């Protein structure tokens, strides 16, 4: 009798009713874009975009171009990993490019060699002092710079309740100021051999991949990841569930800052120099990679895997235009278009989601 009153219930756990993962759509887009460039390549250039059409290599791929694409993507991709977490938590980080600039200058100044070709280093920041330091010093200094900047962002957002857009815009301007002030605008060069090894060859790609795997696991399998999604999805619900929202946000921004620091270390090591203008508009490239990869600016949705694929799409488009011999000016215009286009796509996705709900 009591059972009869439960007629509308009954539990089902239907494996066929699983949602289609959004990353698959993003991956489909990557394939499609590659195909478009292949088509244009065959049509206009008379050669293949990613495949080896001249039998120059052992493999079927055009390895040179593939390498350029992933190298291009790796350094900004490291930033995008942090930006992804910030956006998923419902925030935004406009400071990462400038944090790269400031960290590049400060970290590099602790990575200098004492002598260049037998003469004292002409670019020595601290005079003859603090040269030939162990590699751990510039790395720690770089990480701490990023962590410090990110933590300040987080504290302003979480405790002073300044909108993330404004708080990180302030950091964007200030950190760029620090980058210029550090050496009064002078570039810093001649890093130690061990420091230069960090960004040598394909090392940036390896570092990017390792960090991507690490943060994929963190976002998917740890409390930190779950609470980041929860806060971005419904901050009030997260608070009511007892999550310390403010403390968590500080952690998210701090991690994003740290990743910007890592990116700066890799970048300066690869270029063997640090300049105060380094990292300009990297924040927008990183945001574009995340949004192209399906991270929603409304928060709560997206993934590290999506961002990695988004970064590849970004790289493919940029190098695709180089492949088609488009002028650099056009490339910048197109890049601007991609960033706006990604946001428009996100808006459209949000509206569609809202209609369905």
């Amino acid at each position, binding site marked *: 009798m*009591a059972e009869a*009153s*439960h007629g*509308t*219930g*009954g*539990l*089902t*756990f*239907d*494996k066929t*009713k*699983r*949602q289609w993962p959004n990353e698959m759509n993003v991956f489909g887009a990557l394939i499609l874009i590659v195909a478009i460039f292949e088509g244009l390549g065959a049509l206009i250039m008379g050669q293949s975009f990613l495949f080896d059409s001249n039998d120059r290599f052992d493999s079927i791929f055009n390895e040179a171009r593939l390498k350029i694409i992933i190298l291009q993507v790796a350094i900004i991709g490291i930033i995008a990993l942090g930006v992804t977490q910030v956006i998923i938590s419902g925030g935004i980080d406009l400071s990462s490019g400038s944090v790269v600039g400031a960290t590049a200058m400060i970290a590099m100044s602790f990575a200098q060699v004492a002598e260049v070709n037998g003469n004292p280093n002409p670019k020595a920041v601290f005079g003859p002092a603090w040269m030939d330091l162990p590699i751990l010093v510039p790395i720690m200094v770089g990480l701490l710079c990023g962590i410090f900047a990110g933590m300040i962002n987080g504290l302003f957002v979480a405790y002073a309740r300044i909108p993330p857009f404004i708080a990180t815009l302030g950091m964007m301007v200030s950190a760029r100021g620090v980058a210029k002030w550090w050496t009064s605008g002078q570039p810093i060069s001649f890093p130690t051999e061990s420091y230069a090894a960090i960004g040598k060859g394909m090392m940036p790609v390896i570092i990017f991949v390792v960090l991507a795997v690490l943060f994929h696991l*963190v976002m998917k*399998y*740890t*409390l*930190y990841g*779950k*609470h980041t*999604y*929860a806060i*971005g*999805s*419904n901050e*009030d*619900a*997260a608070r*009511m*569930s*007892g*999550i310390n929202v403010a403390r*968590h946000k500080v*952690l998210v921004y701090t991690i994003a800052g740290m990743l910007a620091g890592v990116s700066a270390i890799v970048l300066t090591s690869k270029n063997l120099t640090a300049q105060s203008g380094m990292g300009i508009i990297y924040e927008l490239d990183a945001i574009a990679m995340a949004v192209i990869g399906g991270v929603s600016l409304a928060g*709560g*949705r997206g993934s590290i895997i999506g961002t990695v694929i988004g970064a590849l799409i970004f790289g493919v488009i940029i190098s695709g235009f180089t492949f088609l011999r488009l002028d650099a000016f056009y490339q910048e215009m197109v890049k601007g278009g991609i960033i706006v286009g990604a946001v428009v796509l996100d808006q459209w996705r949000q509206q569609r*989601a809202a209609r*369905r*709900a």
Partner: protein
Amino acid sequence: MSDTILETRDLTKHYGGVHALEGADFVLKRGEHVAIMGDNGAGKSTFVRQITGVEQRTRGDIIFDGKPVHFAGPLEAREAGIETVFQTLALADDLDVPDNLFLGREKLRFKLGPFSILDYKGMREATLAGLEKTAVKIPNIRNTIRNMSGGQRQCVAIARTATFASKLTIMDEPTAALGVQETAQVENIIRTLKEQGESLILVSHNMRQVFDLVDRIVVFRRGRIVANLMKEDTDGQDVVAYITGAKTGAEYEGAA
């Protein structure tokens, strides 16, 4: 073990000059289902928020399960055994069903501060068991709840109660935004809870529902309790008279 699960004495909440709740004396027996009724702004939700630690009371005592309690936040109330379905759904749309059930008190496989590893399997199994008890129908618990119907979402919120061995369930207008069929589903869950001996406070405007489901009706008016009616001794008209202020319970004379 006393047979009273919850008692409030002189429970009061002022928001600046707004006396949203004034001197509420309230008793709930173990296994009893009580409805709280009252006009909009009568102080029902405020009463719920004081008990569940969402807000800190201005004055008064709350005795839960025999002990005076001072919950610093809703999580403490939940840990003590009070499950609440809030009027504004406290669910995260982009998480799936187990994630939502366990939000803020996740099962862990490995403790490492914020980077503790989640026990997905354990949470899924507990969720399935909890949903089984409530007979909630959800196509696949691993889908995000964004695309679920209002009724399914409300059931997910309510299923928390069945998933965690709670001592008291509080629902603030759980069917206000639901259709007929979804309302029936929620009401079925409430009946199941009654059979299982759960204590319940149900805030509702739905007279039929209240008379269908509960043992006793407490009426709030302008921040005060104005009536305490056993279901057998009253009817809809009578309750409406108390809600609108046409009548006030004998023991509450002079209060409102």
